[in-house]
């Protein structure tokens, strides 16, 4: 296929801009020419219009007529054009008054040509004009008020310029939009790019350059998604396969007679199980299937508090007895359980609070532990970050996925998770669920 040089290649940005300029200039010329022809054909002298034309015709008729015929001719004209009020002036009428110099008079003089003289009759009525015919006869007439000079901006050249400016601006805006829209959509797509494979690929349209960028980005996206999928599959497979040996161990532990050994083994197995669950629920987060349903969030929080109390922790619930919220019940349970797990791990006591307003439902998990320094609050929300990096893997340490799972779940509910300081020490993890997901209990 023949390759056009850059400027002629209509598929490229430069070619499209060049084509745009040429097309708009051609369009402009076409329009101006059309208007010119429509406007100028048979158009009278703009300076001499309406009654002025009749007046000049009358004056020329009178000037060309034999002096003897003039009275009759004048009577005919007066009958035909009464509005001109043409009448003869006596020869001795004062014609010395300085010739008026308005543009109408200038136009009349210019049109009538040499031999005719225009004057302003002394004491004449307003709007009257005097003419001295080539043979010296004088007459006066009333000039109808003509149109004033066209305003500066009303001239045809100005209209053309305005039209050109407006249409070029509109075309320019359109062109800029057409050329940059794909770029903006790239930016948007890059911002919202998520690895869950749900976002649509970039549209491959627009000029060639932009299309090739879109293709490259889509290919890159495909590779990244592939890598992430591989990682997800690998982690899921490992976690899945670990279940079988852990299940066996869990069963075997029931046959251990030494109670101390048995307890230790069960503790280790529980830790492995909760780590597995954390990984799996972290991996699953992007592909949620759970349905949103109306739940009584207060009972969920009470249930979590009860479950921790049953495990021997000091956990309290402080909030209304009932509050209806639209949510994914198991996910929300998991999210808040993670927060309470952290709270009882680092503090002696934890309180789950619920505040419900027409705008939001705010769930707070408060502990009296050491808290988290401001510098580390953000990183704590990242996956695989633990509260204390130096901490050895003791009975309570997990993968450091708890907070990131919670955040992912809260995000999926359209809410926010924030970590705040508690006075005098401790941490408040706050989940805010938006109004859309919340309905006040009746």
């Amino acid at each position, binding site marked *: 296929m023949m390759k056009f040089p850059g400027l002629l290649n209509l598929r490229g940005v430069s070619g499209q801009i060049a084509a745009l300029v040429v097309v708009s200039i051609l369009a402009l010329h076409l329009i101006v020419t059309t208007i010119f022809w429509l406007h100028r054909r048979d158009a009278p002298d703009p300076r001499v219009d309406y009654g002025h034309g009749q007046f000049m015709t009358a004056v020329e008729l009178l000037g060309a007529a034999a002096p003897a015929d003039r009275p009759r001719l004048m009577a005919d004209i007066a009958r035909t054009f009464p509005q001109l009020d043409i009448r003869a002036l006596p020869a001795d009428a004062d014609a010395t008054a300085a010739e008026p110099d308005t543009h109408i008079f200038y136009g009349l003089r210019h049109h009538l040509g040499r031999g005719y003289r225009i004057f302003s009759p002394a004491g004449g009525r307003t709007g009257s004009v005097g003419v001295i015919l080539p043979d010296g006869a004088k007459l006066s007439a009333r000039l109808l008020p003509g149109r004033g000079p066209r305003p500066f901006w009303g001239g045809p050249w100005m209209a053309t310029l305005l039209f050109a400016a407006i249409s070029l601006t509109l075309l320019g805006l359109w062109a800029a939009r057409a050329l940059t829209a794909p770029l903006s959509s790239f930016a948007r797509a890059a911002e919202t790019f998520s690895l869950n494979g749900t976002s649509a690929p970039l549209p491959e349209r627009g000029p060639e350059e932009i299309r090739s960028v879109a293709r490259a980005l889509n290919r890159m996206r495909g590779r990244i998604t592939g890598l992430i999928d591989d990682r997800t599959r690998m982690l899921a497979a490992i976690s899945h396969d670990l279940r079988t040996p852990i299940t*066996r161990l869990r069963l075997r532990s029931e*046959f251990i007679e030494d109670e101390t050994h048995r307890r230790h083994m069960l503790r280790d197995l529980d830790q492995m199980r909760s780590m597995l669950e954390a990984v799996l629920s972290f991996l699953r987060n992007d592909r949620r299937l759970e349905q949103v349903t*109306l*739940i*009584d969030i207060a*009972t969920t929080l009470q249930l979590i508090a009860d479950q921790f109390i049953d495990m021997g922790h000091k956990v309290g619930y402080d909030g209304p007895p*009932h509050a*209806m*919220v639209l949510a994914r019940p198991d996910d929300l349970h998991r999210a808040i359980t993670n927060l309470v797990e952290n709270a009882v791990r680092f503090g002696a006591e934890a309180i789950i609070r619920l505040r419900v307003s027409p705008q939001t439902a705010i769930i707070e998990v408060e502990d009296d532990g050491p808290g988290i320094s401001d510098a580390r609050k953000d990183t704590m929300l990242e996956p695989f970050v633990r509260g204390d990096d130096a901490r050895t893997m003791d009975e309570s340490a997990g993968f450091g996925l708890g907070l990131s799972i919670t955040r992912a779940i809260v995000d999926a509910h359209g809410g926010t998770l924030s970590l705040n300081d508690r006075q005098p020490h401790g941490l408040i993890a706050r989940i805010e669920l938006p109004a859309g997901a919340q309905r006040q209990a009746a």
Partner: protein
Amino acid sequence: MATASPNILVVEDDRETRALIARYLRTNACSVATASDGNEMYRAMADRRVDLVILDVMLPGEDGLSLCRKLRAESEVPIIMLTARGEDVDRILGLEMGADDYLAKPFNPRELLARIGAVLRRQASALNASAMGGASAMTFQGWRIDLRLRELRNPEGARVAMTSAEFDLLRTFCERPGRVLSRDSLLDLTQGRNAGSFERSIDVLVSRIRRKIESDPGQATIIKTVRSGGYMFTPVVEPA
């Protein structure tokens, strides 16, 4: 246990897990048969009476979900599914599959024992032709308790969070409305006497249920305390 020595069929493809479950259940007064896939399961069921099937979801050949659906279509035998977490629990328990309960692997063997006991007791009480026998959901005062999905919804339709033990107790109440139930009989009907120490006492469970369903838990009207007797579930219960 409701039955002296229930016949349990364990369908699980991993040989060691299968043997361990069988051994654990045998030490806890169950009579156990095993199968490694669907064909062996049908053969085992043809050979002997089976009171309950423990069915793994991941099986070679025909998978557990499809076996569960077929079993449910042809018999009333209770089924407890063993699943990998993340399977669609609603599907397992829902009308489509109709399993009676499920456990996520790795599970606590004592929990498995407790669930077996609970499912068998439920089966027995349903066979005793209670008024609610066979209903998959019941309603009282606008509340709806769904036995298949194991969920409770309040009159506004909001799901109320409950533990398994709380649900079993409420279900027991719903199946016996207007009758005084002693703590002992409630214990028998729900957890069984040999349940592990991880189960809470009936009183604690009742107070937790009251907090969720009574408008004023201090002045209970739904689950009334009967002096020196136990508890009584007062509302009219209807199958839904």
